[in-house]
């Protein structure tokens, strides 16, 4: 009799939450469903999640590839009925968005968290019941590590960016002022994203704007292979100012790189899952959080010929030293 009553009250609870668009989540076994690409690149974050959630809830993963459709995403969610979903990488997020679009307006979705996705903030307004961990390390964080590492003062920092990153850049500029760092931007319109204009923008920053350092943002439209080869490499070869890089595979271009720590990002996502479970599977707090931990790499091979003097004690804080 008691069990019937519990069942009935659960049905009422489920109906109530569905009616309000909230996700009640399964009561018996809490399951986290991770949608991720197969590439090893995503292993560290996945390992961080599994390590942090071991013994706390069930973990299932689904590998997303070129053949995955929005319906495949939906089938997995229907079949597994996860308490929460993790989405890794831009393609996965786009598939999930399309899956959500295909559902009726009153459909309730499990809470979801997005990670390892570039400029996740641009996706979030179009996703229901979803939050994200930014993939971009805040400029203020990266530049403070740079300031600690190099002996020369860092007050003015230049950056070339495309107009699509305007709001990101302005946010960074505002935050950096609190640390007495002035960001000087050179904004390029869509039609100007070619080697000649990028070269000119870089030269302008380095020669006329009297910057103390250059920050290479993770901007795929500015950093195409052609632009890197024909604009960035020739100008930066002669650069004697510290260069901060935000794209891991472009560390050879600069002297210092700050990147998100994927394992810690996985742990951070797991912590958000546990936090959401405590709130009865309702997302709480800000829907976009910065990465909690970073990896720092110094490229001494480039820093030494450029005569950039480094603080020896800060080298102990580097995750890798290229020498």
């Amino acid at each position, binding site marked *: 009799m008691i069990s019937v009553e519990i069942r009935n009250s659960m049905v009422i609870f489920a109906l109530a939450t569905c009616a309000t668009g909230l996700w009640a989540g399964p009561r018996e076994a809490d399951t986290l469903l991770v949608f991720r690409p197969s590439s090893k690149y995503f292993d560290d974050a996945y390992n961080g999640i599994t390590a942090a959630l071991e013994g706390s809830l069930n973990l299932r993963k689904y590998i997303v590839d070129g053949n995955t459709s929005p319906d495949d995403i939906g089938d997995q969610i229907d079949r597994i009925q996860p308490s929460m979903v993790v989405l890794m990488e831009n393609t996965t997020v786009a598939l999930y968005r399309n899956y959500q679009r295909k559902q009726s307006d009153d459909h309730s979705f499990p809470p979801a968290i997005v990670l390892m996705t570039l400029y996740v903030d641009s996706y979030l307004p179009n996703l229901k019941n979803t939050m994200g961990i930014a993939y971009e390390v805040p400029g203020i964080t990266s530049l403070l590590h740079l300031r600690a590492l190099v002996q020369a003062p860092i007050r003015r920092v230049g950056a070339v960016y495309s107009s699509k990153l305007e709001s990101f850049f302005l946010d960074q500029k505002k935050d950096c002022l609190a640390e007495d760092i002035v960001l000087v931007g050179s904004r390029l319109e869509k039609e100007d994203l070619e080697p000649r204009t990028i070269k000119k923008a870089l030269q302008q920053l380095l020669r006329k704007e009297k910057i103390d350092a250059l920050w290479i943002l993770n901007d795929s439209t500015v950093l195409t292979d052609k632009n890197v080869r024909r604009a960035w490499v020739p100008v930066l070869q002669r650069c004697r100012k510290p260069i901060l890089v935000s794209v891991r595979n472009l560390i050879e271009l600069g002297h210092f790189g700050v990147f998100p720590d994927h394992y810690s990002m996985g742990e951070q996502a797991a912590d958000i899952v546990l936090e959401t479970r405590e709130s009865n599977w309702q997302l709480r707090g800000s829907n976009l959080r910065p990465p909690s931990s970073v990896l720092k790499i110094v490229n001494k091979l480039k820093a030494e010929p450029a005569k950039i003097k480094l603080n020896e004690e800060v080298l*102990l804080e580097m995750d890798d030293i290229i020498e």
Partner: protein
Amino acid sequence: MKSWIKILVICALFAGSMTAQGPAPSLYIYLPSNIRPYIIQKRMETACPNLSITVYGHHRELDKAVKNKIPDAILALEPVTSRDHYDMFQPALYGTVGGKRYEELVLVSRDQTVDLTKISELRIGVVDILGRKNMRIMLARMLGAEIPNIKPVSRLEDLLSLLQVREADVILVPEPMVETYYKKRSRLPLRTNPIVGGAKMGLAVLAVREDISGTKRGVLMEAFKKMDANMNVILGVEQWEVP
């Protein structure tokens, strides 16, 4: 590979994990400072050539490693070594600074001091050394209130980022580091909020497996007794004392 080269390689590997008295005692280290694990590993290997050392960067990695193969000893902050599931280890040496086995902790905020009577409403940034559940218990004990909104990070340096991007209202840090690290690195108006009644964090402890005695224990203790001042600084202590 020629057989004599094979023999040489095997001998070299074997010698590397042996002391004059037998197999080198194994030591796992987890100290969440800003100094990276591979640096601590290199320095410790040089300082203690008679020990087989592995350094971890996350408490979960240490847990996993201990589950897979129990070492002869672990070196970690006192709250880590005193957990229930590490009860096979007993403190053999306590790290001290200024004669104390602990350091005071304070809450650091940005712009203005915070009202600590409403501490439960604050988002508190902490270095996660025990996992969410145990960190909650530890913080409740330290701060005298339930803290529902913890912002865990892996390293002390990550705490500053939380204040910079306003992801935390306060961060819990060792008091000596406010001047020597946080105010040195940042130009934000950082405010120190002393914790009523004080809050302390045990420093590094060398905890040795209960069943380890004789030569192996002697080798471990000797290595720490001979530790030079620079290495001790990296481990966050000045000296070592017996319980």
